[in-house]
């Protein structure tokens, strides 16, 4: 039997630390994830859990100071991106990995037409001349479903709606057919009907170009709609990983279970109360010695306050970092 093909992008043991005056904060702590061609992996968690810093670490776009990668590797096409020179990284960004952000308006240059901004990606990474780049920009705008694309080529970002700006961002991200697309909360700032349009668009583009997508979101509804595998983060660490159906049907980590219970499913019987998770995420500067979730956890045991649970695999394809979950039979 031939060896399995290598995954498109593999992150192993990634740790990113914020060096602040108040001390060193482990914003991302030993995170591993892998994403394959044509597959979507969702990275889920609440504000401050380290999901966006993970994306910026992969792209090597961390604000330094204060943030720096202190350990781990990011493998793409036989290279470790963490070890690449800044010059070599310039060739990776935009060409091999595309990225889209939550707020498209602030990620676009306000004083350049969108046609010029898309063309810039093409001229920087491919040998395309200016005229050809402009033609290709128009094709890309049409591909991402921009209404009235030919006219919009000469528009400035402020003349477009949020949904249209996000389409421009997507056009720029896919311009060079990247093998990986990182989408950081790409629909959070959009209205639901426009969110549905953008999610449908990303699915179509993925089917056409077989991109591996890392989809960062706090919204479990969006996870259920888009992902095949899910990585749940809490306070900088991966606490659970599973295929999307398994995760929603039988969450193993109490935090995952809490998040799912706190998200109402439309059309379901109305619960008298929403299930909530008491308390708030502890600040990174004062994480407890044991499990970071211990103070909010309904299944906390004395051991949880002394020791940090490591990831274990209680069933094939599943990972969880919880002492209580390890005890679940079957």
């Amino acid at each position: 039997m031939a060896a399995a093909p290598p995954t498109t992008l593999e992150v192993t043991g990634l740790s990113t630390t914020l060096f602040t005056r108040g001390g060193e904060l482990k914003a991302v702590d030993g995170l591993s994830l892998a994403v394959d061609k044509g597959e979507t992996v969702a990275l889920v968690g609440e504000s401050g859990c380290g999901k966006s810093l993970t994306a910026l670490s992969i792209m090597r776009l961390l604000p330094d100071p204060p943030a720096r990668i202190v350990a781990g590797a990011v493998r793409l096409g036989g290279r470790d991106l963490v070890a690449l020179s800044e010059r070599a990284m310039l060739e990776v960004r935009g060409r091999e990995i595309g990225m889209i952000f939550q707020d498209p308006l602030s990620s676009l240059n306000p004083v350049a037409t969108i046609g010029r901004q898309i063309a810039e990606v093409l001229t920087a990474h491919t040998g395309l001349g200016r005229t050809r780049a402009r033609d290709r920009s128009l094709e890309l705008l049409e591909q991402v479903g921009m209404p009235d694309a030919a006219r919009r080529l000469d528009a400035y970002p402020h003349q477009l709606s949020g949904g249209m700006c996000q389409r421009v961002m997507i056009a720029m991200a896919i311009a060079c057919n990247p093998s990986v697309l990182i989408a950081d909360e790409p629909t959070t700032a959009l209205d639901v009907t426009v969110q549905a349009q953008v999610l449908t668009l990303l699915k179509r583009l993925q089917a056409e170009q077989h991109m591996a997508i890392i989809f960062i979101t706090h919204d479990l509804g969006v996870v259920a709609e888009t992902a095949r595998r899910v990585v749940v983060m809490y306070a900088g660490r991966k606490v659970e990983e599973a295929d999307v159906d398994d995760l929603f049907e039988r969450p193993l980590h109490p935090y995952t279970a809490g998040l799912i219970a706190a998200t109402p499913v439309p059309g379901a019987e109305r619960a008298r109360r929403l299930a909530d998770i008491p308390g708030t995420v502890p600040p990174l500067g004062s994480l407890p010695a044991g499990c970071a979730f211990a103070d909010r956890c309904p299944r906390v045991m004395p051991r949880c306050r002394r020791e940090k649970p490591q990831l274990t695999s209680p069933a094939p394809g599943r990972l969880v970092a919880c002492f209580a979950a390890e005890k679940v039979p079957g």
Partner: protein
Amino acid sequence: MNELLSMHDVHVRFQIAAGTVRAVNGVSLGLAVGETLGLVGESGCGKSTLGKAILKLVPVASGKISIEGTDVAPLAGAALAEMRRKVQMIFQDPYGSLNPRSTVARSVAQPLLIAGWKSDAAAARVDTLLGWVGLPADAKQRFPHEFSGGQRQRIGIARALALNPRLIICDEPVSSLDVSVRAQVINLLEDLKARFGVSYLFISHDLSIVEHIADRVAVMYLGYIVEVGARDHIWRNPLHPYTKALLEAAPIANPRLARARKRTVLQGELPSAIDPPAGCPFHSRCPIAEERCKTDKPQLRTMSNGAQVACHFV
């Protein structure tokens, strides 16, 4: 029905350099004592403007808004203050709506002092209020930046409760909060309703939260109400094509259900409120629009189950 709030044919317009923004167009709605009315729609549909119009925070161009039978339009001075005591508001961004240089005690006491309370009575009341919303007693001397988003929203709720309001207008109160904390704040709002009989006008773009909290729901599009009905009517038997599209667009936090459902993704985006389309406001995006929708504006009609819908084909 004991009506707490009634709005009749309310219009709100803003003059800007580019023309007239028709933010709210002929809205008629009622809200009964003890009821939670959900107001849903996408950004720019006029739902927040309508909430502000009730408190006279934006000028009403025409139409009538009454609180407990009293027309709010002529109110001024003491009478306006009394109306604003009965109707309070909590906002999406609790940080932006709290003075960063005031302690929590001062922020929460302010409405009491304005209403003429003595300072020691107000201080005692602040203790009670903070207890009700689940904040620790030592919160009083701290400043807004020392709290998390969910706790700040609790401060905003404590302040809104200070003068025993009859109605609280909640403008996207949980939209900026994390999932786990969002549920805490929603549960708190429901507990307070059960305890004090306060009514809510709950403005939100998040349909799953509105489904959880509302008794009745009004759907707005481009300043118009396109459908109003009981919560079960809206989710089980939506009639207006926009209501249907909105429900189909909302993500479902269940992967099997999400894959199994059929959805028509609405094309296009909200038209400009400066130059709204003639006829039905929704015709430019409507999957079932016909010629007459471009010229005839459908009126809200009452269905046999009491729901109201503005569509020619219902």
